């Protein structure tokens, strides 16, 4: 699994983990993100059970396991958090931040030690050491209880499934040609996202944020002008339909 540093300053670092060449072919490739502050770390959408060994292996190259004091699951899907039962053994004192509506569902993955911090529908903030991270509502995009993570200082939005693209494991980390990239994400957004109203509401809120990098859970990261290009494209896209990819 590859590790890529997205941002670093005096207070914290953003890392992206992904493009795992050893993962079984049948499972979708996922991007995991981690914010490391002075004494703590937040691991976002830590992935499925098949990914656990690879993920923990790359994490302990960066920091001691017990420094990962917070986990975040944007929603309840297995590719996001089915590894929870194993993280529960590895990080017994950690806190999992996740939508309130999924609490009793996510616990089915096995959670005897980790604490669940339920994020209310309107969102909330998490302060780890000197870093403030905002949980931005992204409901129905695609899950009915769903959040993004925004770091105003790093200007990074971890957008979960929004901006996700289905592509091969050796794909570049960043979008290099937006127009070409559309074909890799169009069907995913139309088929998985059920609500135009929820989509437009999210776009209007996200346009007000200062975003340098938009980091989805699958596919490539949008950087600079490509963030605005994505928002414009997404605004014009009709979702909640079954259509063939073009």
């Amino acid at each position: 699994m590859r590790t890529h540093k997205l941002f670093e300053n005096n207070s914290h670092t953003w890392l992206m983990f992904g493009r795992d060449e050893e993962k079984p072919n049948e499972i979708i490739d996922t991007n995991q993100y981690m914010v490391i502050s002075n004494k703590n770390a937040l691991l976002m959408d830590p992935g499925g059970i098949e990914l656990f060994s690879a993920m923990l292996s790359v994490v302990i190259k960066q920091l001691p396991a017990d420094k990962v004091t917070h986990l975040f699951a944007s929603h309840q899907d297995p590719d996001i958090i089915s590894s929870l039962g194993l993280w529960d053994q590895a990080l017994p004192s950690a806190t999992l931040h996740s939508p309130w509506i999924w609490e009793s569902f996510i616990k089915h993955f096995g959670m005897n030690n980790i604490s669940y911090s339920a994020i209310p529908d309107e969102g909330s903030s998490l302060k780890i050491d000197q870093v403030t991270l905002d949980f931005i509502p992204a409901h129905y995009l695609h899950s009915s209880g769903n959040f993004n993570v925004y770091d105003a200082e790093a200007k990074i939005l971890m957008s979960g499934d929004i901006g996700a693209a289905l592509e091969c494991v050796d794909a570049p980390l960043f979008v290099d040609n937006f127009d070409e990239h559309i074909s890799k994400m169009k069907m995913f957004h139309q088929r998985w996202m059920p609500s135009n109203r929820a989509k437009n509401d999210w776009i209007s809120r996200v346009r007000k944020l200062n975003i340098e990098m938009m980091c989805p859970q699958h596919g490539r990261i949008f950087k600079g002008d490509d963030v605005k290009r994505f928002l414009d494209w997404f605004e014009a896209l009709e979702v909640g339909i079954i259509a063939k990819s073009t």
Partner: protein
Amino acid sequence: MSELSNNYFISAAEIAAKLDKTTRIAQQLSLTASNARAVALRAGERAAGFRPLTDFIDRLAEVTIKSSKNINKLAAALSQTSVDKERANSAISHFNAIFIKANDSKFIHSLDEVFERCQHKQKQLENSYKRQISYLSEELVMLSSELRNAVILATLSRVEASQAGEQYQSALTNVADNVEGAANKIREHIRYAQQMVSILEQH
């Protein structure tokens, strides 16, 4: 008779499911006992020899229900422990993979404590698993020996039924058949469970 599943935790669930049926059969035995008492009362003096047998059928039903409920509980607990054991084994194998994959990592030793905890948990579950199998085996042997009395009871019931006169003979013979039939069915389930348990003991 079905083959033992490759996964021991599925086999434990299969044992629990199979033994669940014994409680229901034992409850039928209890109904048979009530029915026997009613027929014996109606038959009056002609079934005088049958009446004390109904107490034995009652006792057999009571012991069988109690024992099969206990066996069910033990089998369900064994099934749960098997799943927990499987999960603990899975966690250990994931950690082992990490120790191989990341053995040169700077912070590999930060996993020592949690790994030790997982090993301890695995050991505890292993001990519980063995203990529960042993309890279950003992209880199965006990119920099986209680059910041997059912054959004697059925034989005695048939003898007494033949003395009860034409009017009641078939009803009382039917009671004897039911006792024997229920006991045989339960013993069949027990034999199956004992076979499965003896294979589980090897895991």
